[in-house]
C-alpha cells in the first residue's frame, strides 16, 4: 500500500486539522486519546469552551509540572487548568450538558464507522473482558455533532470505514464527519462524501483503503 506520492497525517496532524474547523463559541467535548490533543491547536484568542465529563466547563492548557493541582483533572484523569470563565459542576449536571444536547461538538476516537453514521469505539467483541464504555455512549447520543478522529485503516491495513460496523456499536447513526490520517469525510444520506484528501492522495487509492463506497461531494 505504500505510496511515495502522499504523506498521511500523524496523530497530532489529525488533531490540528480538526481544530481548524471549530469556530469560536462552541462548547466541545474531546474524547480520550487523539481527540484530547485538538485543544492544543485552537488558538487561545479563539474562544472555544472545552467540557469534560467530570464536571469541568472551560478547560485551559495543561499545567507546568510544578503547578499541577491534584484536584483538577480531565476525563482522562490528566492534570488540567481552568480557563478564566470556567464553571465546575457535579457528574449528573455534567452529563446533563452532554446528554441534553448542549454540546455543539464531541470529538471521539473510533474503531469503526459505518456509512450510515454508526459508531463502534468501545469493544472488539461482545464478550471482551475489557469493557471501556465510559461516557462515549452518552456523548455520542447527546452532542449536536459527533466528529471522529481516527486512522483510516488498522495497523494491519484493514478498513475502519465500512458499510456496517462489525464491532459492538456505541451508537447508531450519530457520526457527522470523520477526520483520518488520509482524508476528511462527511456522513451523508448516500454514505461517505470525501471532503478533503491529503496532498498527493488520489480518490482511487483512498477508496482502496475504505470498506464502503466513497462519493465525491455533490
Amino acid at each position, binding site marked *: 500500500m505504500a505510496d511515495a506520492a502522499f504523506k498521511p497525517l500523524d496523530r497530532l496532524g489529525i488533531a490540528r486539522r480538526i481544530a481548524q474547523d471549530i469556530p*469560536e*463559541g462552541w*462548547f466541545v467535548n474531546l474524547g480520550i486519546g487523539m481527540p484530547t490533543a485538538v485543544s492544543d491547536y485552537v488558538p487561545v*484568542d479563539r*474562544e472555544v*469552551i472545552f*467540557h469534560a465529563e467530570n464536571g469541568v*466547563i*472551560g478547560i485551559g492548557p495543561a499545567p507546568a509540572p510544578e503547578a499541577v493541582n491534584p484536584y483538577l483533572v480531565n476525563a482522562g484523569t490528566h492534570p488540567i487548568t*481552568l480557563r*478564566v*470563565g*470556567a*464553571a*465546575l*459542576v457535579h457528574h*449528573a449536571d455534567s*452529563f*446533563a*450538558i*452532554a*446528554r*441534553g*444536547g*448542549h*454540546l455543539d461538538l464531541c470529538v471521539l476516537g473510533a474503531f469503526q464507522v459505518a456509512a450510515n453514521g454508526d459508531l463502534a469505539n468501545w469493544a472488539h467483541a461482545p464478550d471482551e473482558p475489557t469493557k471501556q464504555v465510559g461516557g462515549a455512549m452518552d456523548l455520542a*447520543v*447527546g452532542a449536536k455533532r459527533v466528529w471522529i478522529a481516527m486512522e483510516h485503516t488498522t495497523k494491519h491495513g484493514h478498513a475502519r470505514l465500512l458499510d456496517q460496523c462489525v464491532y459492538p456499536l456505541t451508537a447508531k447513526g450519530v457520526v457527522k464527519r470523520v477526520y483520518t490520517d488520509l482524508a476528511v469525510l462527511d456522513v451523508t444520506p448516500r454514505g461517505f462524501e470525501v471532503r478533503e484528501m491529503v496532498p498527493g492522495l488520489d480518490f482511487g487509492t483512498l477508496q482502496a483503503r475504505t470498506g464502503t463506497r466513497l462519493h465525491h461531494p455533490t
Partner: protein
Amino acid sequence: MIDKFVSSLADAMAGIRDGSTVLLAGFGPGMPEPLVHGLIEQGARDLTLVVNSGGRGEGPLADLLATGHVRKLVCSFVRGASVAGHLHKAGRLDVEIVPQGTLAERIRAAGAGVPAFYTPTAADTILADGREMRTINGRHCLLEHALPGDVALIEAWEADRWGNLTHRDSARNFNPIMAMAAALSIVMTRHVVELGAIPPANVHTPGVFVHRVLHVPA
C-alpha cells in the same frame, strides 16, 4: 470573543415565534419582569407558558395573560381570583396543572436529555386520570414527559460575557433548570461582572445554558 450581552430589550426578545413554549422562571423573586413586558411588546402569540403559578390579578404575569397571547398555561396552581383563573373559567385559556415537583423535574429532564420518567407523585389522584401508570417497587407511578421550552426567560443577579450566572438567595428557584431546558435562554441580570469574577465552583447557571443576556440595573 464570546459576548452574549445584548444592548436592548428588543434585541433580547428578537425572533420569538408564534406558537412558542415559553418557560418563565420565578417564585416570588426570580421572575424577570422586564422580560415579560418585553415578550408582550415583542408580540408573539399562541404561546404555551410554563410558570410555577398562574399569578394574581395584577403584575407582569397578569399583564401577559391579559394580552390573550397565551393559549395554554402549564403551572402548579391557579388562583380563582386571578387573570388566569378568570380566563380559564371563561374558556379562553387552557390550563394544565402539574404538581410543583413534577413540574421542576420535567423541566430539568428536558435540560438533561431525559425524555420521560416515572414518579409516584399524583398517582392515584384525578391528575392521573387516563394517564399511563406503572407499578415500580410496589409503588404506583405516573409516566411524565420532559417539558422543554423554545424560550426561557431567566433572572440573574450577576452575569459575565460567557453567560455564567449567579442567582441571589431564593431567587434561584426555577432559573437554572429553565435555562437548561430551553433552546433560547434569555437572561436579565442585575449586575455585569468580568469573566472570571464568579468563582468556577460557585457558578449557579453555567454559560452553556445561556444565549442572550440583558443588563437591567436594579
